[in-house]
């Protein structure tokens, strides 16, 4: 498998995502301020004034420091959601497609009933019921996100199970665990990574939406969605309050979509995945 790293989609996507990652990991080295340090004397300072590169908000908090915190929250939540839902979805789907029968029937009914809920409504319900915390946000976003993986894996496993090399493995004594590990799961990896990249972009958007509605992580943690909600009322007087987190969300989602697109082209230019 040869990857074309000179592709514009890859270069732009990797650069933008690298920038966001750098901000999340090493942002503290750029700004001396912390995300929650208030200073009412310095409220609503425009960018590049008073030592605040991106300005300050209505409570005089440094926007760059809050952006860094937001990047950490967004990336951490989205990555956990994608990994957990990917592992669960691929295993459930692969077993459905390979075993068929009762297991398939039961899991597909579960999948259909989960799919029947509007995603953001289900997430709001879960957070309202269990309370706001980092783990509950991850749970609320994961609970539907494993489904695209399971559908895709099920469809592929149904094809794979009847391939001669899988049948031959069974004739040579390969049990369920062996066939899954050696033949089925390795073949599902490429599609799972592609689905995962797009799914991470939508997870970031969903996390921002929840924070915007005040239902995400606890309010004392700065998030992009929360900053957008706060900045909304100052949009005419201090545009940077809402624009900065908006740009953060925009470039992260854009970079992931570009990378996902690029990955999909690498594996199969003809294939279209309309799973998310």
């Amino acid at each position, binding site marked *: 498998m040869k990857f074309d790293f000179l592709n514009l989609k890859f270069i732009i996507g990797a650069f933008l995502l690298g920038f966001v990652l750098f901000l999340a990991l090493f942002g503290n080295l750029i700004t001396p301020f912390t995300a929650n340090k208030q200073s009412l004397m310095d409220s609503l300072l425009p960018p590049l004034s008073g030592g605040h590169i991106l300005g300050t908000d209505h409570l005089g908090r440094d926007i760059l420091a809050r952006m860094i915190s937001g990047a950490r929250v967004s990336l951490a939540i989205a990555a956990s959601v994608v990994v957990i839902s990917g592992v669960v979805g691929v295993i459930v789907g692969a077993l459905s497609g390979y075993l068929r029968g009762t297991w398939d029937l039961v899991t597909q009914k579960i999948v259909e009933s989960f799919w029947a809920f509007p995603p953001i409504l289900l997430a709001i319900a879960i957070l309202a019921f269990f309370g706001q915390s980092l783990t509950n946000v991850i749970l609320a976003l994961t609970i539907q996100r494993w489904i695209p993986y399971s559908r895709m894996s099920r469809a592929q496993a149904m094809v794979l199970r009847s391939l001669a090399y899988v049948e*031959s*493995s069974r*004739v040579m004594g390969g049990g369920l665990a062996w066939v899954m590990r050696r033949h089925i799961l390795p073949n599902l990896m490429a599609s799972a990574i592609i689905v995962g990249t797009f799914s991470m972009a939508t997870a970031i958007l969903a996390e921002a939406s929840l924070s915007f509605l005040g239902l995400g992580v606890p309010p004392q943690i700065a998030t992009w969605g929360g900053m957008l909600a706060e900045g909304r009322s100052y949009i005419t007087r201090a545009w940077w309050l809402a624009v900065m987190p908006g740009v953060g969300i925009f470039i992260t989602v854009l970079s992931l979509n570009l990378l996902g697109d690029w990955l999909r082209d690498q594996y199969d230019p003809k294939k279209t995945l309309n799973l998310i």
Partner: protein
Amino acid sequence: MIQTSQTATMSARDVCKTFHRSNGWFAKPSETRALQGVSFDVEPKEIFGIVGESGCGKSTLARVLVGLENQDSGSLSLGGRKLFGPGMADVPPVKRGIQMVFQDPYASLNPRMQVGEAIAEGLAISGMARSEREDRVAETLSLVGLSPDAAQKHPFQFSGGQRQRICIARALVMEPEFLVADEAVSALDISVQMQILNMLLDLRDRIGLSIIFITHDISVVEYLCDTVMVMYGGKAVERGKTADVLDNPQDSYTQTLISSVPRL
């Protein structure tokens, strides 16, 4: 050295298999009676041909023999050992001592696995040590006429005929008492077909392999098989020495089948 038993006789009695397909919750399920009481005996070191048109049940029979499909009724024994029959649990595929070569040499090998890994897969499943596996793979590769360095290559580096040799090696490394070849040369060029058929004849002579060879091609049967069974609509309509059946067919379907073969 790869060994086969050279003494085991296979005998199948009244094997039946019906496929049921659901047509939704309220409609009657439809039935396909793929095997309707098939019986046959294969002697040691014999190449036994099963011939018939598409859908006559010959592939289903192969899958039932190796255990990929469960039969509805009937019995099968190999060298006095019962593999399935009334009042007993089916012997699992790997313990039957029957290995299979499939029709499509391109779908038969996992593109991600090195050839050596693919051939040794059954040995790895049974827990054999790596060094011993490598020895067996090298030995089996030479048996099917491939060089030992093929083990480090990937399937895409081989042609269809070479892949079929690899598949035969993968079956032989398990030291089966019987080899079931389901349309094993149908996907290959005529010249490559001949090489594979000659190799099978050679393997029979050298290691005493017994083969059940399933095909729709009468000329392949004529070239390869000692005895032949003609199947039609899930039943065995005629059985006998290849020369007798081809020269003097008794059943009307066999007569039609043989007369439809183009002669040059």
